[in-house]
């Protein structure tokens, strides 16, 4: 080996170690950037959840027991709360799909400018406080509210309808609040559907209706499932709107948790309910992924 060659190979070795350390430094930078967020989530989400779930295993006397869970499955009151929570969540999800799907489909058909304006109408309420919107619905839906009085003056109804302080009111308010959660992922997915695909289906002999059901609808399913999961899970734990528009007649799970703490000061029982709610949400996500293969549907 000549002196020049030796020098060259030493330089090559030097390069290898420099490149390696550069790579390590880059990885450390990315890790460093994500650490604050990870810490925040750990401190404000994971620790409280762990602490609360540990509370659920203590009874009122402060002894370790499964009493709280046993009561959830034995008490008829709790059972009814679960049934009502599920019924409302399913109803809200179904109504959101029925309202949201045609809306999104229409948004893909209008010009980009019109679609942008219409999206603002979807988003402005989305950015408004849930409390404000719920009170607004209360004003609209009450016995002598604008909906009842205008329908009566038009002669559609003789008596004011009972729209607020009951199940109907809760569902109307929740649908309004949940709709953007369905519309946003669904519209995003629909926009990515290549219009040539629908054209191809029609060109090859499908009727426009057939092309919609055989091509467009399956292509929009990932967005629809994402929206359904969001709306359903958010509905399961929803508090403000059913509490205000339900007028105390509608008891959903979150309200039961709240009253267990504020009225009975029973943290153990409330935590057990919270844990069950969390598990239900996880099961829903797992089931959706299992049977509809959310990940598989995204492959293009």
């Amino acid at each position: 080996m000549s002196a020049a060659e030796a020098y060259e190979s030493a330089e090559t070795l030097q390069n290898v170690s420099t490149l390696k350390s550069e790579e390590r430094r880059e990885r450390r930078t990315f890790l460093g950037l994500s650490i604050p967020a990870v810490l925040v989530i750990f401190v404000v989400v994971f620790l409280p959840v762990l602490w609360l779930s540990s509370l659920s295993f203590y009874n009122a006397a402060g002894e370790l027991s499964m009493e709280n869970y046993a009561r959830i499955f034995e008490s008829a009151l709790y059972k009814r709360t679960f049934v009502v929570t599920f019924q409302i969540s399913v109803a809200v999800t179904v109504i959101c799909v029925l309202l949201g799907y045609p809306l999104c489909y229409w948004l893909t058909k209008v010009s980009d400018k019109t679609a942008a304006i219409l999206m603002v109408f979807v988003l402005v309420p989305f950015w408004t406080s849930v409390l404000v919107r719920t009170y607004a619905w209360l004003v609209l839906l009450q016995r002598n509210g604008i909906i009842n009085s205008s329908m009566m003056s038009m002669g559609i109804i003789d008596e004011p309808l009972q729209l607020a302080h009951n199940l109907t009111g809760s569902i109307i308010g929740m649908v309004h609040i949940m709709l953007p959660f369905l519309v946003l992922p669904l519209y995003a997915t629909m926009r990515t559907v290549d219009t040539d695909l629908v054209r191809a289906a029609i060109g090859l002999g499908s009727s426009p209706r057939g092309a919609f059901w055989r091509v467009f609808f399956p292509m929009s399913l990932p967005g629809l499932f994402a929206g359904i999961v969001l709306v359903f899970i958010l509905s399961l734990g929803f508090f403000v709107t059913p509490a205000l528009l339900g007028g105390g007649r509608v008891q959903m799970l979150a309200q039961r948790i709240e009253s267990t703490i504020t009225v009975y000061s029973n943290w153990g029982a409330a935590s057990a309910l919270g844990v069950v709610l969390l598990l239900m949400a996880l099961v829903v996500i797992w089931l959706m992924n299992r049977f509809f293969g959310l990940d598989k549907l995204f492959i293009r």
Partner: protein
Amino acid sequence: MSSTQSLPIDISGLCKSYGSFKALDDVSLNIAAGEFLTLLGPSGSGKTTLLMALAGFTRPDSGSIRFGDQEVIATPPNKRGLGMVFQSYALFPFMTVAENVAYPLKIRGISKSDQKTRAEHALDTCQLGGYGDRRINQLSGGQRQRVALARAMVFEPRIILMDEPLSALDKKLREHMQIELKALHQKLDATVVYVTHDQREALTMSDRIAVVNHGRIEQIDTPERLYRQPHSFFVADFVGESISLPVEVANDKAHLNGRLLKSGSTIAQGSGGHHLVIRPELLEVTSGAVPETANDLSGHVHDIIYQGESVLVIVKHDSVGEINVRVPANRAGQTGLPSKGERIGLALHPEDTIIVPEHAS
């Protein structure tokens, strides 16, 4: 199993405007049964609008489209019975290759077993035998294009429309597919209308080419006639490599810088000034003096550019400026080729002298 017969297409007086923009300006065109016709034009020329009007996705303002002796102007696209191939392939991503190909058969209520055999046959024809169970995202661009072709021909349509089907492929594969498509057309009994902006692709594949510009058909001819006898400056410029020089025309004689140009054919009439169109490969490099029968375009070699299969020589002519000459890169082409700065004899023979008006009459 083939019982179909290709259909002729008669288009007459087709108009389509978007506001004041005329996408189709009184287009009339007859396409023979079994012909491979290419609509060639730059983007925005109206070629895709014309194809979409044939397919039924664009509703023209007026005119007539007949497939055979059937008027289809008001027929919805799904009732026109066309095979279609899209630029984006438009394969259904949630279906397998075989399901994609069988789609038109399924729509037509053909039995499951028939669907299977016919889809397999179509895939074999497109050299994709055994790929039926693959998913679309497991295929390369070229394979996807073949699936799209198989799907367009599986139900034996009498007319197949293709919208720039090869433009997303790389050059080598594109050239290979051009030959393959041409061969496939000869096997199928179908009239093919093909849209492209690639003039070389059009020359390679077509029986006839319709050059479209500003919503009108500038010229419709065989590839060779289009190349050698363009009717207008636009066609001459768009099809093939060329440089053009303005010429004065009087009494059916053309003059370049005051010198009479010897031309083999009568000069086409039209509006606007006339141009001499020089194809770089049609110029002859002469070792001695340029023969009396040819036009003399001799000058000095300005630059020599090696381009693989050929060499481009840029010549500075004394009065008309730069002229490009293409010579083959083989030994015959290179013998006696002058080097930079030297004088080069260039002969343009009368039969290669193309003189066109700015606009065809």
